[in-house]
């Protein structure tokens, strides 16, 4: 059950997004969203004093976030003098058939007046959104984001392979699944490339890893050397291939249909790869920008982050984490570690939960509002 959008996509949520177009407008965007029910703010640290490549990335990411099917409409909060091309972002979002309002702080006359104006336009959109009802939607409208974080020994054994089974079920049902975290491919990129639907796409995967490594090398860091770490070896990991396969097991067995830049909206159904680092603020934003309407996030020690307008399902295979972090964890697959549940059974349970959450069941991150510290992945320096 979802919200059918005019562009044919399906929302699993129906928020009005209050998107800050530059770090300097965050305060106003946050204040507006706090005062209007049915809205959520997306705040970040970018949008000014950056290289052209990064400004273009801010423009593209905000445009695509605004097009995410979980948003009914968008209010852009702009300072006025930033580098972000606010009118282009607004036009791009409008082209997907959504209402867009823009509030410019320097034109409106300061924060107090801008908050007031933002609240008024947000109320209007939120009321319109509230009259929409969920309708029965096919599973092929799902765009599932895959993520793991704060991993431990359990991650590669229980939640990641189980999520891989769930991801395969989404793909079999005609949906889309998005794998990011390119840094985690290192050492197993040649194996992942074999899952590509053709050699060209396989080569693109290997090139993505090389680009990520070269970026780290440009500041003197070798992110491949020293893997697996001494601690990994003590924990039972033998080779870098094994370590990386444990992370990418969450993508299942489906063939990789395409490779995309950060936040780019997939044109194919099935499993796709998106360039992204693994850190939460950047990858969750990237997954939301590429149109994910639900995200499954496996964790060992307990990563708390969600995303403002995309439900993030937290799955752990660590019984201790499940019991201690009840306000953050959604699903417990520790039965796989204890031998009381098989991987296929755990995978089916994750798939069922993805369907329930997509139909409206709230995740712990949504209930607690642990969704605010987000950012956009930048490649160049701040100037």
């Amino acid at each position, binding site marked *: 059950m979802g919200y059918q959008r005019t562009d044919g996509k399906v929302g699993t949520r129906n928020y009005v997004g209050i998107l800050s177009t530059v770090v300097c407008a965050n305060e106003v965007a946050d204040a507006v969203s706090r005062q209007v029910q049915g809205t959520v703010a997306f705040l970040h640290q970018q949008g000014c004093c950056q290289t052209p490549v990064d400004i273009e990335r801010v423009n593209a990411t905000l445009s695509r976030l605004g097009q995410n099917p979980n948003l009914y409409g968008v209010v852009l909060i702009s300072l006025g003098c930033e580098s972000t091309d606010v009118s282009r972002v607004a036009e791009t979002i409008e082209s997907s058939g959504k209402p867009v309002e823009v509030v410019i702080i320097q034109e409106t006359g300061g924060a107090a007046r801008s908050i007031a104006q933002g609240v008024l336009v947000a109320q209007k959109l939120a009321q319109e959104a509230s009259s929409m009802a969920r309708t029965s939607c096919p599973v092929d409208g799902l765009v599932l984001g895959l993520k793991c974080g704060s991993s431990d*020994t359990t991650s590669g054994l229980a939640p990641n392979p189980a999520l891989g089974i769930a991801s395969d079920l989404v793909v079999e049902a005609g949906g889309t699944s998005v794998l990011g975290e390119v840094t985690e491919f290192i050492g*197993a990129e040649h194996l992942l490339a074999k899952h590509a639907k053709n050699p060209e796409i396989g080569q693109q995967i290997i090139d993505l890893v090389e680009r990520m490594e070269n970026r780290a090398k440009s500041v003197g860091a070798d992110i491949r050397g020293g893997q697996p770490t001494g601690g990994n070896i003590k924990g*039972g990991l033998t*080779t*870098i291939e094994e370590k990386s396969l444990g992370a990418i097991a969450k993508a299942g067995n489906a063939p990789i249909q395409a490779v995309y830049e950060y936040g780019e909206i997939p044109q194919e159904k099935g499993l796709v790869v998106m360039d992204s680092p693994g850190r939460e603020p950047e990858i969750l934003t990237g997954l939301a920008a590429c149109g994910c309407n639900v995200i499954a996030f496996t964790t060992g020690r307990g990563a708390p982050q969600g995303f403002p307008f995309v439900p993030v399902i937290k799955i752990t295979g660590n019984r201790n984490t499940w019991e201690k972090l009840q306000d953050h964890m959604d699903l417990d697959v520790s039965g796989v*570690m204890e*031998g009381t549940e*098989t*991987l296929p059974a755990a995978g089916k349970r994750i798939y069922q939960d993805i369907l329930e959450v997509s139909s409206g069941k709230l995740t712990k991150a949504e209930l607690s509002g642990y969704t605010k510290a987000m950012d956009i992945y930048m490649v160049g320096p701040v100037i």
Partner: protein
Amino acid sequence: MRIDAIMIKREDNVATVLRDLHCEEDAAVSAGEAQERIRLIEDIPFGHKFAVCRINQGEQIIKYGEVIGRATQSIDQGAHAHIQNIESLRGRGDLD
């Protein structure tokens, strides 16, 4: 049956143990919905692997249905499979 170790994919030739296991235990190993018992010939700490069949020197080590390395010596069924008898095909961090 309580499971002691897990093969992520049926084609794997190593299983990862879910708690500390001891030499001469008959470990219950799951592979998807299937199960089998394998006699251990060494102690295997939590999170470590053992061979589910004899693996000859130079043979590939399979976990997640993929090649994670190569046997540097023969590994008997039930023996600890780790850095003392497996090498990466991609270079190994602790030797770099």
